[in-house]
């Protein structure tokens, strides 16, 4: 069989075919227990449920917005499960699967999209930096963080490395190219993980690039590889190896996870304006969850009991999220002035005092019957 696709591109690294068949790859051998496979399946199903619930909560007016990860579960879960606790991940804004795998409770994400926080979790606690909305910015933060790890001497076989998540659209930002340059010249322990989900809002990849993204890495002087982003095992195996190489001083690597944004860009978006339904149908056949389930069933890795139990766990999770979302406390008006500076600030103090007086004037007026 030819090693090239119809477009003359090398095939993507794939360990699990859409039909659920396991394939060996010479460069990315994967040792994985059946227990781990069941864990990956559970992750995939549960993050998809988080996503479905969040979309529904947005529709009900409980969230201002949601950016769906539908279709990208395998890219995210596989890569994030390849990380160690001491590693650091820098996400964009759609990495709910990564957040899940790093232990950030989904309600923290709901809080951001509901508008009660701008993120708010402690990155050090989870090894997950905050969501970053301005496209591409976090690739430089990740690179700088990796340079810090180098300077701390925290690399080595048991050391730390960094992964930066970004999208196909983000690959066009100057920041992203600068991150590649800084990572390359510093040989920084950072893995660039691009989820090429075929869309940047309404723009397809041909508006961002003329060569497949992974090939760009060569020009910067580090390896790049394209993986089947809907294959959780490929994502796990390739990220694991890339992170290990980074830890051991072999420098950065670019992983392009070829995947698909099955949903709208966000709940504000209407993809019928720019893409044809047939495309979605084509990708449905490559669904990341179905193929893992097919594999598990064929290999007897799990039986019906297991799948039923994961399903009811997802139901319980959904119920919990709905309740948690509705009971997220709104911030108080004077919270506007919090966390602007570390030290007391006369200007902020003055404005806070003025605003407190202003608010109090309504309470007084209310007592007197209003203006």
């Amino acid at each position: 069989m030819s090693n090239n696709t119809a477009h003359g591109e090398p095939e993507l690294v794939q360990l699990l075919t859409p039909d659920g068949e396991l394939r060996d790859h010479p460069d990315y051998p994967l040792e994985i227990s059946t227990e781990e496979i069941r864990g990956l399946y559970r992750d995939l199903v549960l993050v998809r449920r988080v996503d479905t619930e969040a979309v529904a909560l947005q529709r009900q007016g409980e969230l201002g917005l949601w950016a769906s990860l539908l279709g990208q579960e395998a890219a995210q879960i596989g890569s994030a499960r390849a990380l160690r606790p001491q590693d650091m991940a820098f996400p964009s804004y759609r990495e709910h699967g990564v957040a899940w795998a790093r232990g950030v409770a989904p309600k923290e994400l709901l809080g951001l999209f509901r508008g009660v926080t701008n993120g708010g979790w402690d990155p050090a606690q989870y090894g997950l930096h905050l969501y970053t909305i301005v496209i591409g910015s976090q690739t430089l933060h990740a690179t700088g963080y990796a340079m810090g790890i180098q300077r701390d001497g925290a690399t080595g076989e048991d050391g730390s490395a960094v992964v930066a998540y970004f999208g196909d659209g983000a690959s066009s930002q100057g920041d992203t190219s600068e991150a590649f340059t800084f990572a390359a010249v510093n040989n920084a322990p950072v893995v660039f993980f691009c989820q090429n989900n075929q869309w940047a809002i309404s723009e397809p990849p041909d508006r961002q690039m003329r060569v497949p993204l992974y090939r760009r890495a060569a020009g910067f002087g580090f390896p790049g590889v394209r993986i089947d982003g809907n294959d959780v095992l490929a994502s796990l195996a390739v990220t694991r190896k890339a992170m290990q190489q980074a830890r051991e001083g072999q420098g950065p690597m670019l992983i392009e996870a070829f995947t698909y944004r099955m949903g709208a860009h966000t709940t504000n978006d209407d993809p019928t304006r720019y893409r044809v339904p047939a495309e979605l149908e084509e990708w449905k056949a490559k669904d990341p969850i179905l193929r893992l389930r097919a594999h598990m069933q064929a290999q007897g890795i799990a039986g019906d009991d297991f799948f039923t139990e994961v399903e009811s766990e997802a139901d319980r999770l959904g119920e919990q999220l709905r309740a948690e979302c509705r009971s997220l406390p709104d911030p108080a008006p004077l919270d506007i002035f919090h966390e602007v500076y570390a030290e007391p600030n006369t200007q902020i103090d003055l404005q806070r005092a003025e605003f407190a007086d202003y608010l109090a004037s309504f309470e007084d007026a209310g007592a007197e019957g209003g203006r």
Partner: protein
Amino acid sequence: MSVNLTIGKAINAGLRRAMESDPKVLVMGEDVGRLGGVFRVTDQLHKDFGADRVIDTPLAESGIVGTAIGLALRGYRPVCEIQFDGFFFPATNQTFSQLAKMRRRSAGALSVPVVLRIPYGGGIGAVEHHSESPEAYFAHTAGLRVVTVANAVDAYWMIQQAITSPDPVVFFEPKRRYYDKAEVDTDASPDSAAAMGSARIARQGSDLTLLAYGPMVKTALQAAEAETERSIEVVDLRSLAPVDYATVEESVRRTGRLVIAHEAPVTGGIGGEVAARITESCFYHLESPVIRVGAFDTPYPQSRLEEHYLPDLDRILDGVDRAFTY
């Protein structure tokens, strides 16, 4: 022909008319093509004018503004859409150090008639970076003209005036007002439209001048209506750089009081600059200090707090009350 248009549709109609009358006019930005922009302001232009004139750019704001400069140097008139206020900042070098300074650098030989359209301001319940009011940075930068609109009529005419301007124009669009409607005579002669640099008396009054621009004009008008005891004049500034001081001064000399309201933080804002200038030029006519009503010196907050952060009718009336305590 008089048509009822939203602000968004009026800008769209203005863009269309500019593209029809000058083949050098280009529209460029993220998602401005088939999608018609995330606010649909460029709706149908891609279909009608083609991908050479309505360009879905790579996702890079520095690239958008930088290549627009190059296109302008080659004789084109690019109208760039920056998707949201908070996403302008990757383009700061190209805008502040290149676009704004090209005329001086070339001793007047070069013109770079680029328009940057920026939907701005809050009140739409959005996540971070989608609600900011960065106009003061632009007004602070010599070489840029900075304008904003508050109604569909101005939207229709001012976008065309911005495009024909030989200078770079930053055109701020009040995103939470995109759907506000007005009758627009789209066949009228361009000569009938008010000049882009002029302020407009939006409501006549005699006791106090309330100055606002962009999204706050509507709030200011509502505040003026709600204020029953005093007669409030509302001035819509429209041009933030340069400011039409003649109109503002004429109003303040009649009313003796000035309150300036904007969504942007007060510190270093347009309001402070206008206040200083008016205090100097109208000192003997003023019955009270100029009062500013604006946002706090904090980051734009998470959306559940924005109703407290954004100046509203009550905050404006509080400012009005303060002006009458002197």
